[in-house]
């Protein structure tokens, strides 16, 4: 499963961040790493991006990038 498929209001655990290069590094730099708990807070009014809570702060991630984040 990827983060993209998780509905609002659900908490999930990150298992792996796929992909490579700048986007992956940026996602991980912001604290989305293996084992961390991620809460999907809301979706932007136009349907993308999504707002998530990770490590106690709010982060905005595009759905295309959320697809790289594998969760369980």
């Amino acid at each position, binding site marked *: 499963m990827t983060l993209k498929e998780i509905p609002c209001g659900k908490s999930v655990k990150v298992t792996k*961040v796929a992909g*490579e*290069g*700048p*986007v*992956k*590094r*940026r*996602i*991980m*730099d*912001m*604290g989305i*790493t*293996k084992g*961390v708990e991620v809460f999907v807070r*809301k*979706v*932007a*009014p*136009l*349907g*993308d*991006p999504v*707002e998530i809570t990770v*490590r*106690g*702060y*709010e*982060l*905005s*991630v*595009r759905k295309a*990038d959320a697809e790289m984040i594998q969760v369980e």
Partner: protein
Amino acid sequence: MSITIALAGNPNSGKTTLFNALTGSNQFVGNWPGVTVEKKEGKLKGHKDVMIMDLPGIYSLSPYTLEEVVARNYLISERPDAILNIVDGTNIERNLYLSTQLMELGIPVVMAVNMMDVVEKSGDKIHIGKLSQKLGCEVVEISALKGNGVQKAAEKAIAAAGKKEGTPPVHKFAPEVEQILEAVEDKMDGTVPQEQKRFFAVKLLEKDDKIQSQMKHVPDVSEEIRQIEEEMDDDTESIITNERYAYIGAIIGECYKKHSKDKLTVSDKIDRIVTNRFLALPIFAVVMLIVYSISVTTVGTWATDWANDGVFGDGWSLFGLEIPGIPVLLESALTAVGCAAWLQGLILDGIVAGVGAVLGFVPQMLVLFIFLAFLESCGYMARIAFIMDRIFRKFGLSGKSFIPMLIGSGCGVPGIMASRTIENDRDRKMTIMTTTFIPCGAKLPIIALIAGALFGGAWWVAPSAYFVGIAAIICSGIILKKTKMFAGDPAPFVMELPAYHLPTVGNVLRSMWERGWSFIKKAGTIILLSTIFVWFTSYFGWVGGKFRMLEDMELNHSILAAIGNGVAWIFAPLGWGDWRSAVAAITGLVAKENVVGTFGILYGFAEVAEDGTEIWGTLAGSMTAAAAYSFLVFNLLCAPCFAAMGAIKREMNNVKWFWFAIGYQTLLAYAVSLCVYQLGNWMTAGVFGIGTAAAILLVIGFIYLLVRPYRESKTLDVNLKRMANAK
């Protein structure tokens, strides 16, 4: 002996506030060599010999964003005496991630945990002693906003700098990673100082593509990389990132106690409403309406009119007291002393008008900047990007590009200046280049003139002008992001949504003033010089073989008319090869509304109405409908007025980029106008010539540029050598 302390920290950690608190008004704003990232330094209050260097706000020392590369390059090659690492106490876990990287540089680090007042208020607890012990550096509690602990943090940093010894990193990764790092460190020779070895070892292991240029001897570590990647089943970059967060996760429990787990903070409550699925767009519309109506239509117009028509015009009244404008005062003074007519002209119509053109925009701009500073520092600006991202990213712009474009529909100058709020370099440059395509207030008279003279005042002309502007922005975005100039920078959109908080009046005003002043300073010269140039060429010329100064109505004898005659052929393919149109387009560069007045004078009217009703008949006789619309399109899209060009120059902060922007705009205007005229002529009059064929080819080429494939870059294209040499 003077020392330099670098201020490093995450965006939104209160770094700017701390910098202001440390340095007061002793600041120098410049640019990092070779790039458009702003560089701020300042002298520490009460310490003449201590320089504070404000590094760009960064989350990491990765090689992928301009800010990060600039910051780490400075830290590696200039080696400040100490680093003051500011950490947001309300968001400590992610903030410490950068700290673990700073510790590895071999430079003394002092950590300032900011927003302690907020932390204490929420009942959370941070054990400073534990944190200091686990990270191996001095830790100070501060509140930059209230000024608490700021002086202490500065003193600790000075003391650390005096010791000359780097803070040895005490954080440890998993044993197998440590082992590999040690192996890499052993491969380095004496050209890397002992205390920097860990940093370089980590970067080599991460396959960092920018580190090799910083090393004299680059050891081959591919075997180590292969080994650890196989062992841990991940790439080295991810392994290191994981290890850092794992270490932070392991120590955070001891250092930080959260008081209430599930209670919503005030910020959360605000955000629930403000970015609510249904309320977000209406609230956004209301906020934009307020910003626009105050900074553009009401207070903004009043301020601009006051500056342009009052102070730099006929005069204004203060509580019934008539205060004459500067030109009026100067004119009577100059006449009184019997000043020569040409000198009087130079001073009044050249210099004063030029200075007026620069300063006339400032009051309105300051009003806008107050709003921008407020929206930025309260946290709403990030939400604008969040809300609008979906629409704007399709054509290579940021959600934050919305504000510059909205303001640009009033006046392009503050519109361009508003692009400063966009952090991403690529998005910002793109916004600067395309904002002036939106018809601004000064272009409306041109639209009215063409609509009235050639199209019988048809209702669709004005909306079509806006349509052309928006289409130009969208197409330019798509085309430009694929060009070499833009494709070089990766632009991941993983953005922090900072907690809302009320900014201080001082910080808002300071930001307002900094931006306003930088416009006057950096944009002023170009605006002034070009205004004087156009004044000179329009008021001097040959009459009956004699070179002399001209009257208002003798524009057709001027140097400008000669220039217009000389360049008119360029515009012949666009359908308006008449010299009058060329001259009007040139005077339009001073201010777009001049186009109408210039036509008036050239057709023999000293004064015309704003929409030029008097000359509608004459203009209709000299132009076809296709030519007139082509003229309109050209004036909408081509290089904006000098003031806006000055703003572009200021915001691009780079000569090459400035000319690229102006060149692109003019080229696009020419190409689109050519197509409009040639294709319009073909369809309405059935004329098919070389021009028509060229227009068809242009359209095909344009479509190709729009649809050609594109791949986002994986590396940041920046010339490090140039930065290193330009010390």
